């Protein structure tokens, strides 16, 4: 019961703040709601007993990326942006596409004859103290099973970083 209440709390918070992120006019307010949404997602990770993902979500997204976001938002002159119309006029197209997507999902559920969540394979929850330690498990899968993809990804990120530095540097 407690699990359910916590899950719906975090899920509702994530969705509501995601909506508010889009609808707020003030960019800093949007950033705050985006942070809330990310934190709520981190809470769901924690509920799934993925502690490592929880803290990585907080350190990287909230502590790293969002700080840079806010930094940039404060540097850019937003008074001009506020006066302009923020959204491109695609309301009707977006509405049609969203309805189509909703219909598709609904059709899927209808044709399978099951409500959301029904008939999904449910694993028996293990006691928390008998689960494998999360950060160790992540480390084993990253550095043993998926070492090559991991290294490729890190080289890719390094290339992106060097590229950013080169582009930002003044040409002499």
């Amino acid at each position, binding site marked *: *019961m*407690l699990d*359910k*209440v916590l899950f719906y709390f975090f899920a509702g918070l994530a969705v509501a703040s995601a909506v508010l992120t889009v609808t707020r006019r*003030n960019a*800093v*307010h949007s950033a*705050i709601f985006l*942070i809330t949404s990310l934190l709520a997602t981190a809470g769901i990770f924690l509920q799934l007993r993925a*502690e*490592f993902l*929880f*803290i990585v979500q*907080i*350190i990287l997204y*909230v*502590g*790293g990326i*969002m*700080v*840079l976001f*806010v*930094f940039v938002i*404060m*540097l850019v002159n937003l008074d001009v942006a506020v006066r302009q119309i923020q959204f491109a006029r695609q309301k009707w197209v977006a509405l049609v596409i969203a309805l189509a997507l909703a219909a598709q999902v609904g059709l899927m559920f209808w044709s399978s004859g099951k409500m959301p969540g029904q008939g999904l394979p449910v694993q028996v929850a293990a006691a928390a103290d008998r689960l494998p*330690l*999360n*950060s160790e498990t992540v480390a084993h899968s990253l550095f043993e099973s998926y070492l090559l993809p991991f290294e490729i990804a890190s080289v890719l990120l390094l290339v992106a970083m060097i590229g950013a530095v080169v582009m930002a540097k003044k040409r002499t």
Partner: protein
Amino acid sequence: MMNAVVQATIEFLKLYWAPLLCGVVIVAVLPIIVGYIVLVERKVMADMQARLGPMRVGPHGLLQPIADAVKLLIKEDIIPDNADKLVFWLAPVLSVGAGLLAIAGLAIGPAFQIAPNINIGILFVVGISAMGIFGIVLGGWASNSHYSLMGALRSSAQLVSYETAAGMALVSGLLFAGSLNITAIVEAQRTQGIWFGLLAPVALFVYGVASIAETNRAPFDLPEAESELVAGYMTEFSGFRWSLYFLAEYANMIVVASVATTLFLGGWLRPFSEVHWMSFLDFGPPLLMVAIAAYCVMRAPKQPVRVQQLFMLAVAGFCFVVALVLAAPVLLPMLKPSLAAVVQPYYAGIHGGFWFLFKVSVYIYCFMWLRFTVPRYRFDQLMRLGWHFLIPLSIINVLVVGVALIAAEYFHLQGWAMLLVTTPAAIIALVAALAILAVDSSRKERERAAAATEFYAR
């Protein structure tokens, strides 16, 4: 629906009443501790500048924090007209909330930890306390003032730069521990018989410098540099909101000191905890408290007012009670050896707590010492120190510590013998980082010279 919520709440309380209680205690006690840290800081500052410091409220200013707190609480709370009200309200709360939440992950001795045995232990503390930056940035933005905004920008730039160095320093310390769990880290130091600060001195140094920068303290207190920015991001805050920022700063200081203590300075372990003939050190804590009590008794007659004399004696009595509590688990097994097993957990809890708090206090004292001896850095110097020296140093240190660990395993070195490989590793890391710095500054010098020649040639 209502029923379900009530049921969930009861379930929650049943499971978590003890951590909740501890949390409430910490939230209630922390402002007092912070107040007294501030008092100590003012006293240390006064001592270093050959003054007396606060002397008026209570004997030797011992009641000054309470007077300050009352003053801050009854001050007018001003919100600027053009401020973003909601964010202005939210910012200090965020700041202090992150600091308090991070304390939940810390372990003050083996017995006292609000959230015991979390798998991500030290990452939780570091990650949550890093969120406090939003309080500073949003507060600076919401005040709608240029000084505040500059302070906030400086603060976020500084934090993002120094967090990398601090994180890398933590990584090289954690390589020795092999776990993120706080209890496991301290246990690893106990079984190896040596603090990781000795095995990774470079990491301790980098973490020390970076943690000063992260807590925005002098010599890196540029976000609130009085001579340039009035008070930086706190300029428009007054009264209780301002004191929340203050509380957050000191809570963060306690957090970084605790992280450094846990990872590098042996956590709650007594110095040489595994060496049997050094166990006379167990008498240190009670004797220290008795000495403080004796000093207070000695000074009591010199107080000018009767109330102050009584207060001084009360302080002495308190110290004496603490000394008794500390002495009991050491003395009882000596008087009656059969009690040893019963007393053991109490000994670990009480003495562990004492040593942990003692180390944290020493670390914070070093912060104060630095604050009053080193002049403030300029912003470009700060960035240069971070990006050109500390970050390369910490990254190189992670590499060489890894190599040293492999070498130690190869030669079957353990405990103090590991110094044979880790000391050269530390020296290599330092030399390499200094070489990078030297190459960089000579290049900069050449560029400057070239620019000057070009300027005069025109």
